């Protein structure tokens, strides 16, 4: 497939707030089921092993007119829950047979209760993950939570989920993670060849498509991107941080690049990059999944860092590994996790002499000029420092 064609396909998926591709998938087979999930992490392997399509629900972005959703939220609460409610009230989420609310923050936690009150009759589950990273304590708790989730899924589909099914799904997701690792490595190596808005769209496509199809799409994209030659600009290399939940307008990402920054790492769609290594496909698959969460999962503001000296290391490591020259914190307005975390992450960067800049956005931010100006000033100052 040609590059343009792939990007257009992803863009169409991104713009389709009616989830037509999901509906089409569902109608293509008798008894097919779909489960939606909010950011940041749910074990999609289990859903897949039940034969269900996991679908990422990421709010309405800047395309959705929020009419009903505002009546559910005060002005001082972030945007993503209100546009998600809007999607549901307007019937766009009717294709879902269930909805998962990961333990991200109090807003998402309470949204799970709102769902229980408003949309009864479908599976609604708050998906708790441990903040205790001892294998025998947090791991044991999580293992049993996974088992209980597995039971709930089995009830939904009317059959048990076997260990072999689960192992096969783990394998499929290992392959998807590998494809994403290659995509990110390619961007970090030649960021002019892999513009971040395209990476974003590709990752978003993975929230809708069956995972096997998404893996192939990534490889097709990499192959197609290698076929074209794009101009190399004198941009600086940055990591962007804070986009793990409420989604940035696509224009914001474009603005950052236009302002002279190549993004070499980000925290988009962490569900697809949460587990940092392959999950073993032999042995007890549930234990493998839970051990993976405990021992090698990514870091975000929603996750506790047990040792003070490790706070911010994950971000610093990403800067180092991707040879970034600075960090842009783009945090959703009114987001306690991101905004409270930011000063600690900034301290970790300051201690290592890594420059940063910070701003807030909302999924429907229309005025992009200020972001562009700020990113531009940041890029200029980085270039100045490196020249000095």
């Amino acid at each position, binding site marked *: 497939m040609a590059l343009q064609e792939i990007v257009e396909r992803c863009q169409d998926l991104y713009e389709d707030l009616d989830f037509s591709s999901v509906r089409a998938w569902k109608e293509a087979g008798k008894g097919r089921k779909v489960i939606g999930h909010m950011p940041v992490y749910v074990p999609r392997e289990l859903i897949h092993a039940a034969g269900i399509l996991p679908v990422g629900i990421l709010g309405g972005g800047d395309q959705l007119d929020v009419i009903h959703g505002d009546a559910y939220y005060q002005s*001082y609460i972030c945007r993503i829950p209100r546009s998600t409610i809007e999607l549901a009230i307007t019937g766009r989420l009717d294709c879902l047979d269930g909805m998962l609310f990961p333990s991200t923050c109090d807003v998402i*936690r309470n949204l799970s*209760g709102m769902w229980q*009150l*408003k949309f009864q009759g479908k599976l609604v589950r708050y998906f708790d993950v441990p903040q205790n990273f001892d294998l025998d304590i947090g791991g044991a708790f999580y293992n049993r939570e996974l088992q209980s989730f597995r039971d709930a899924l089995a009830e939904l589909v009317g059959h048990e989920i076997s260990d072999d099914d689960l192992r096969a799904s783990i394998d499929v997701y290992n392959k998807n993670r590998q494809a994403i690792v290659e995509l990110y490595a390619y961007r970090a190596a030649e960021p002019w060849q892999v513009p971040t808005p395209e990476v974003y769209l590709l990752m978003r496509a993975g929230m809708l498509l069956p995972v096997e199809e998404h893996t192939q799409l990534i490889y097709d994209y990499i192959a197609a991107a290698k076929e074209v030659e794009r101009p190399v600009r004198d941009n600086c290399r940055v990591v962007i941080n804070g986009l793990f939940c409420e989604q940035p307008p696509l224009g914001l990402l474009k603005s950052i690049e236009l302002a002279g920054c190549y993004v070499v790492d980000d925290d988009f769609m962490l569900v697809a990059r949460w587990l940092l290594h392959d999950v073993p496909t032999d042995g007890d698959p549930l234990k493998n999944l839970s051990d993976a969460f405990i021992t090698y999962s990514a870091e975000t503001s929603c996750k*506790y860092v047990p040792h*003070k000296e490790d706070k911010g290391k994950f971000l610093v490591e990403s800067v180092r590994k991707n040879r970034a020259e600075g960090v842009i914190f783009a945090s959703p307005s009114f987001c*306690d996790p991101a905004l409270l975390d930011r000063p600690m992450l900034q301290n970790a960067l300051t201690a290592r002499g890594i420059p940063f800049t910070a701003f807030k956005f909302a999924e429907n931010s229309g005025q992009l000029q200020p972001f562009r100006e700020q990113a531009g000033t940041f890029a200029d100052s980085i270039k100045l420092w490196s020249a000095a």
Partner: protein
Amino acid sequence: MNTAAKEQSTVQKEQSMVLQKEMINANYEALATAHEDGKKISSTFVPGNLNELLMCFDFVRNLPEINALQAGMRKKSGGYIMEAERSGHSEDVCTYVKSDLGMMAKGQVGPNGMPLPTPDILLLSYTGCFTFMKWFELVRDQYDCETAMLHVPYQADGKITDNMRNFVVTQIKEQVIPALERVSGVKFDIDRLREYLKESAKAEEDLVWVLQSAKNRPSPIDAYFGGVYYCGPIFTAFRGSKATTDYYRALRAEVEARIRQGLGPVTPEGVLDEERIRLVVEGPPNWTHFRDFWKMFYDEGAVVVASSYTKVGGVYDFGFRHDPEHPIESLADYCLGCYTNHSLPARVNMLCNYMEEYSADGFLNNSIKSCNSFSAGQLLMLREIEERTGKPAGFIETDLVDPRYFSPANVKNRLESYFQMIEQKKARGDARTAA
């Protein structure tokens, strides 16, 4: 006498309030001199606190939220919050956190003017609010001391599962207790814990009795503005002590006497003569204008008969008591059972129950600008409660400790029209009953 002092002298206080003030002051003094006295200090949050356990290791107990609350009441929080914002904290986030961090930045002087020394252990029982986790990390960043974290899962389906309870119990036994032993140098004695829990259960029994006294007409208490005082000792550094049991005994006797005399609640301007409106209130109060806020209610004869905020440090009125027979398990159930660790549907059920049991005329939501844990979802809760009970619901917005977000004229206007609406509805109802 200056005006403030004059005002102070005319404020009426219940005897129990005086007792409580003494307890709090004594604790701040104990904190200030703890290290000189060879004692260790723990710092911990209110909801799901393990006070009885900390007492087993002779820790003097500091609670950052109470410092923020006290700073709010003493009109200091505004400056602290600005200080935190100057040092890079966003204007969007929880103001309790910023008040605490601002106070630290300004030299960590306690409400009694004495410095609060550095804690020897930070213990986070992370229940009911994600922001606690970030707050804990931010505070930890400033100290060089041991930390212990207790993750309390959320009661999303309105029940405590065995897996949740076991998880909390295991963390307490295998991680929290060893950390407390290490820092304090005191060996854990489960019988000592049992003794404290016995005291807790007695105090809890009396607290519930006091809160439920609001079912009387007139209610002898205000279960929000007065209620926050009544909950103070049990929610904070005192639960499990003999002094606290005595405090609740005395409080209960005071309230019993008021019921016998048919008296209403004691307000800062004396006993309320006429109870015109009975309310259930959801959400924390505002601390920076606490007295003015309260006045907006008692001037209109509005009495709060039940509130959710008085359950934030433990829900006792549906039967839970700390249990000396199952000490660690009951600590786990306590942590799991704090109000904001309950799902939204469970919160709605609880509040509807209060509307019915306490014969309330209306439901009022005080939505706190910077507290997602309480506030996200409250508009739906409001509609549900209004629909289920058929009683008028009102909505106001303030903040806990940020004076910038308390607009007296606006809040007063809203309250007045809400109270009018309730009176009209009541009048219509009375007329129908008479006909």
